[in-house]
């Protein structure tokens, strides 16, 4: 009897580990559908939810690698903005799309690289470094644009976010990148080494893993995905604002944590981050659809973030005991 009970508990735990975030997302869907029954379950709105989540998901991918190492990246919003500005600026000068995108991403990667190098060189907590660089990067965006938006961009820019057989391209990008990242984090040496580093920096170093190299790698990845997020943001709105993405790091961090990543490092799955990003997008969409007042929206949003993390935690703790 006891054995059976423990078995089911363990099974439930592994189930919850894998699908906890998904369950919470489903609960949210149901709640919003009840709150706004006429509209929420429509396929069109579900696709809208997904689309609205893509930028959060992409930024959260970037954030994930910083968090995986037990750090954090407060600059993803500014980096996203930066790559958007570069792409917009170059596109206005008639530079071919492909080159615009490459240079935009290189710019984002450069910023990530700077974060990584500063964290290594100064041996500072990533929180401090990215707190500083976030302000600096934002300043650079403002100086570059003189504070004015870049608009009237060539058609191809918006073409990056049109629909293919009813599915928005950004959703496809996020899906493809997600699949690649699942493989990267679970199957490659570099991916596993990042988990090792996040779990125990000292042990990883003792085992001959080059900590500095991997720290830089994580932040380069962080920059890269923030950059992709920035370009999708640019394509979606069709203009580059120097203040775009301001405060989005909060959403990115929340998405990672809701998705099961731990701020202590070494824990989390790409799959979870995707669901976390969708959760954030869904909360935003649901609150809007239900026309919750601006002030109450803050209260509800904050509570939902805490509740969804707490619920996951509580259930998995209950199961352990």
């Amino acid at each position, binding site marked *: 009897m006891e054995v059976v009970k423990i078995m089911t508990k363990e099974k439930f735990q592994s189930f919850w580990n894998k699908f906890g975030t998904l369950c919470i997302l489903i609960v949210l869907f149901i709640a919003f559908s009840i709150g706004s029954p006429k509209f929420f379950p429509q396929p069109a709105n579900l696709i809208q939810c997904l689309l609205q989540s893509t930028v959060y998901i992409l930024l959260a991918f970037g954030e994930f690698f910083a968090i995986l190492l037990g750090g954090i990246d407060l600059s993803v919003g500014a980096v996203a903005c930066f790559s958007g500005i570069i792409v917009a600026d170059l596109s206005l000068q008639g530079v071919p799309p492909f080159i615009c995108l490459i240079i935009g991403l290189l710019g984002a990667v450069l910023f990530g690289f700077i974060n990584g190098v500063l964290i290594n060189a100064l041996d500072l907590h990533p929180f401090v470094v990215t707190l500083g660089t976030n302000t600096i990067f934002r300043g650079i965006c403002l100086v570059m644009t003189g504070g004015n938006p870049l608009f009237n961009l060539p058609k191809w820019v918006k073409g990056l976010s049109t629909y293919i057989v009813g599915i928005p391209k950004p959703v496809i990008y996020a899906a493809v990148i997600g699949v690649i990242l699942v493989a990267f984090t679970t199957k*490659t040496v570099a991916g596993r080494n990042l988990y090792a580093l996040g*779990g125990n920096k000292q042990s990883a170093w003792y085992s*001959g893993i080059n900590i500095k190299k991997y720290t830089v790698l994580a932040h380069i990845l962080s920059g890269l995905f923030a950059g992709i997020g920035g370009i999708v943001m640019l394509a979606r709105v069709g203009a580059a604002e120097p203040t775009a993405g301001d405060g989005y790091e909060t959403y990115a961090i929340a998405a990672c944590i809701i998705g099961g990543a731990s701020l202590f490092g070494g824990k989390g799955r790409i799959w979870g981050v995707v669901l976390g990003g969708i959760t954030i997008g869904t909360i935003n969409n649901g609150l809007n659809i239900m026309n919750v007042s601006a002030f109450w929206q803050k209260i509800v949003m904050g509570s939902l973030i805490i509740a969804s993390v707490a619920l996951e935690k509580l259930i998995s703790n209950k199961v352990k005991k």
Partner: protein
Amino acid sequence: MEYLKMNNITMKFPGVVALDNVSFDLKLGEVHVLLGENGAGKSTLVKILSGINTPTSGEITINGKAVSNLTPKESADNKIAIIYQELSVVDNLSIAENMFLGKLPTKKKMGITVVDREFMYAESEKYLKEIGLKKNPSTLVQDISISEKQQVEIAKALCSNAKVIIMDEPTSSLSIDETKNLFKIIGHLKKNNIGIIYISHKLPEIKEIGDRVTILKDGKYVKTLNISDLEVKDLVPLMIGREIKDKFVGTKREIVPDEQPTFVVKNLTRKDGTCKNINFEVYKGEILGFAGLIGAGRSECMEGIFGAKTISSGEVYYNGKKLEIHNPYDAMKQGIAMVTENRRETGFFPNFPIWKEIAVSTSLKKSTLGGFTGMVQTKSEKNIAEKFTKKLNTKCTGINQMTYNLSGGNQQKVIISKWLAVNSNIFIFDEPTKGIDVGAKSEIYAIMRSMAEEGKTIIMVSSEMPELLSTCDRIIVFRDGEISGILNSDEATEEKIMLAAVHLN
């Protein structure tokens, strides 16, 4: 022919010269033991080989090739593997991934280099079998016990294909069986022409497996000897500069008929089921030993008594009065002290100097309301710290040194000092001599005995049977979270304890 040579190595830390012009060499196929008191510089020396410490000066040659300033990676490339004194596994990875950490095997899949899991699991399975750890290689390390983690470390060193394997106190958390198994493996390794550097404070082990021994004292080289030429007891004076009295310290205590026990534990069961239905009693002035295999649940039981972990049932009585213990604070306030087993995780504060470390619990006990009313008394706290570092012969630059920077054994001494400083009636020592040198060990036994004679009640959990037999008045044996036997020390033998500790099937 020496495979590895270290010449005139000097290593300075701020305020400490950890190694002073030490030379050392290793041949393939031998076990070269490093011996010395706590803080003599053994770990520092091997950490230089593994690339963690960069020596201030000195040369290293491996296989005739001069190498300087090794990094952990270069050390591994030079086929050196090390089992550290402090566990260095990564909790969130699987056993197999830990074993291959830093050298994950790869294969090509659709043109992309990926981790070769099949190979990794098969390979680790092989080594786990060899060391006798019955765990699935895909189990996460966070889900296994300390001794199992230690065994994973050993397996990790074995699977590295190293020519030189360094073992820094590998048996400090292994059971007797596991230790025996390790020695068997060491035998195989020697046959396969692998050189082993072995560090341990358990002197009998040295005679059993060692070929040569190098003795360090206060960071200085003392002597290198062939082990076959000498008796274990000859080593002690070389190591600590004096003889020690071993075996029986003080007189044992007899229990008078009809005597009432002073400390009684009734029906203790932990919520997580790691110990069940524990009943025992201890008399005033008695030292009660707890034996058992590692993982038997002794520590878990003590944590339950001390209030550190939740119990689902059970009562604790002191002098007939029931104690209300919900957390370690309650326990401490009511006169219970506990030296925990895992010094790194539950023992010390990396941000405190020795004197603050020692003062923490004392000042907490002196104040009320959970410490919210008290003021610190720096002067008397420092005096107490001075007293105990001297008494336990803790090697440090002074009581202002950070506990974090002490050698493993000296950290243990500081933690013991911390609890000795608290004025308690009941002392629980969980593996108190783990990593402690022979000299200090006998010092600690003597302290425990004199405390008992003063009328304190002492519980000692230990996996070293000889010390239990020599120090305790009675011995309780644990098996699978339950008490499986109680022995009086005059009738107890290692065989009888083992019989009670293992399953009969």
